[in-house]
């Protein structure tokens, strides 16, 4: 499809127009064409365990309420009163029976239905049809192993189809360390902070940028690994590991896997019972998954704006667009619900020194994304596209060490900008399409690697 936006992405020569990182008109189009149609991560079910529990979230620039109703099912509603738009809920999280607007007093049940209207008789002669004025619901909601997703578009494919084989990558973050399905929970409180950069640069970074080690040189010199030394990750454990880029270009997702040699021994030098717990979990995982246990998760991005870390620390991170040059980052931390407190504390302290605005690794990322955004503004530079050609030639050589892995054909050993190329190709498809049928039609044309 030769649309206006496809012209900004040159898959063949691997160039991307700088304007997509700085132009406010393009940003407004993204809200209509991407964020109003895509599946967006809105929260984790462990945040709202009981009836009436709610959590305020976002879908793009839209504020939404994630709430569990009396029947135990989860609803997602736009957080604005149907009467005059005032936020009907203004607390980050809590438990309630009603959302009552503080402007004129319309109140809504936890199922989103309008239940109370002041002046129903005197002002509306009892003729207001309450069933037509409930909170605006999303079109679809899906719960994938505790991660809750929603979309405003009734024509969207199912979440399962949307994720495709990317779900196996997500599993590495959402399954328990011993390989049992699901079992994750998030700690209370979401880190939220503002960065002066375009949301796509962060999504691109997490989709599998193995080419930016210089960004984290200082933290590697210091050594903040989980056991408190060794660069910034489990380097002692993954010394013989191969980093693998995995791309699902048809749908715009991708990430990094850590492939351990089949004979690997868990050598994580964690202290005492924490080390014992990890070693026991690793053994159980091997028994359960067989040769596929050699695959550990790294980072990943689900198009458009949900990213995650699957090894250590475990994190879900969402790049909420605010403007072309501003993003509000939300970061959740994942733990095995059934792990002992000592293990949670150990993982949590590592997560906080690694991630977030004070995290010794991530705080350097923000500086780079800001600079890249600033570099995208200007009458002269905007005619000079960015280069995404890293390992363009090698893209046709999938990693085949694990032929039984469901997505073995999607993998490439080492660094490539293929996942970023896939991400921007996907972006252009969504931006040029007007509906889900067109999106699907164009996605089907993407065969193999980009």
């Amino acid at each position, binding site marked *: 499809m030769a649309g206006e936006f496809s012209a900004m992405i040159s898959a063949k020569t691997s160039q991307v127009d700088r304007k997509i990182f700085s132009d406010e008109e393009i940003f407004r189009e993204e809200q209509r064409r991407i964020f109003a149609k895509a599946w967006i991560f809105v929260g984790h079910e462990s945040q709202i365990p009981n009836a009436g529990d709610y959590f305020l979230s976002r879908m793009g620039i839209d504020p939404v309420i994630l709430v569990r109703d009396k029947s135990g099912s989860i609803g997602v509603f736009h957080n604005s009163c149907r009467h005059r738009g005032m936020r009907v809920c203004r607390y980050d999280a*809590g438990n309630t029976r009603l959302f009552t607007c503080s402007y004129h007093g319309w109140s809504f049940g936890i199922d989103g239905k309008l239940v109370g209207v002041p002046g129903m008789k005197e002002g509306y002669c009892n003729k207001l049809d309450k069933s037509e004025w409930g909170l605006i619901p999303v079109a679809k909601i899906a719960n994938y192993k505790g991660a809750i997703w929603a979309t405003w578009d009734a024509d969207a494919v199912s979440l399962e189809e949307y994720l495709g084989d990317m779900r196996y990558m997500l599993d590495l973050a959402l399954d328990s360390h011993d390989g049992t399905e699901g079992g994750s929970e998030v700690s*209370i*409180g979401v880190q*939220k902070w503002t960065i*002066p950069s375009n949301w796509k640069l962060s999504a691109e970074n997490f989709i599998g940028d193995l080419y930016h080690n210089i960004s984290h040189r*200082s933290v590697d010199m*210091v050594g903040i690994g989980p056991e408190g030394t060794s660069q910034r990750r489990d380097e002692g454990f993954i010394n013989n590991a191969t980093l693998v880029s995995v791309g699902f270009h048809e749908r715009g997702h991708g990430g990094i896997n850590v492939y351990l040699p089949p004979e690997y021994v868990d050598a994580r030098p964690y202290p005492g019972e924490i080390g014992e717990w990890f070693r026991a979990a690793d053994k159980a995982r091997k028994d359960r998954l067989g040769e596929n246990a050699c695959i550990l998760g790294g980072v990943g991005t689900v198009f458009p704006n949900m990213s995650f870390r699957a090894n250590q620390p475990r994190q879900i991170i969402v790049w909420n667009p605010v403007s072309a040059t501003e993003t509000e980052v939300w970061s959740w931390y994942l733990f095995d619900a059934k792990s002992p407190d000592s293990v949670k504390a150990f993982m949590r302290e590592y997560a906080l020194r690694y991630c977030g*605005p004070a995290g010794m690794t991530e705080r350097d990322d923000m500086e780079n994304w800001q600079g890249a955004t600033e570099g995208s503004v200007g009458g002269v530079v905007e005619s000079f596209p960015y280069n995404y050609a890293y390992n363009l030639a090698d893209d046709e050589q999938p990693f085949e060490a694990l032929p039984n892995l469901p997505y073995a054909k999607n993998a490439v050993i080492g660094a490539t900008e293929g996942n970023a190329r896939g991400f921007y190709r996907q972006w252009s498809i969504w931006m040029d399409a007007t509906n889900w049928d067109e999106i699907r039609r164009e996605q089907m044309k993407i065969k193999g690697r980009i």
Partner: protein
Amino acid sequence: MASPVEGASSVEAQEMRLHFEVSQFLYKEMDLVDRRSLGEWLDLLTDDIRYFVPLMLNVPFRKWDEETSRPQTDTAWMDEGKKTLEQRVKQLMTGVHWAEEPVSRICHLVSNVLVKSASAGTDVGSEAEVTSRFLIYRNRVRNEASIIVGWRDDLLRKTEEGWKLAKRTAYINQSTLLDKNITTFF
């Protein structure tokens, strides 16, 4: 003991002395941070320090006590001991820590110093609960400027080497951090 301040009772004099020592300690501490004498700053922390910067949540009035995330359980901005603080200092000294390269111009203002525990003295082994407010101005590169304001609840301990910081909780008065990162101490 003769009162060092004319007209003050010995109890009042002791309280004044404590307040003087504590506030001088807090000013000196942030002076070292602003001047990037971070090794000396680390020497002012006890080895068993807990350093906690909680998140602040938007809560209803009747749940005001749930406004901040809990230490060593919930998510926080920072929640760590001395080892991690030492690592942060080391990182700031590498010269390739891009979030602070080129270095920021940082100024800490400390005020509203209030000694909360009446039992504290100034002898070795004494502990004092002290609350204060901070305002941190950061200016970096060409035109970046940010201000972070908040509260601090500290536990100070008098050692042979003088006062040391044994515990700090620094409450940033923002629920969404209106800055891209945190590269200083509170």
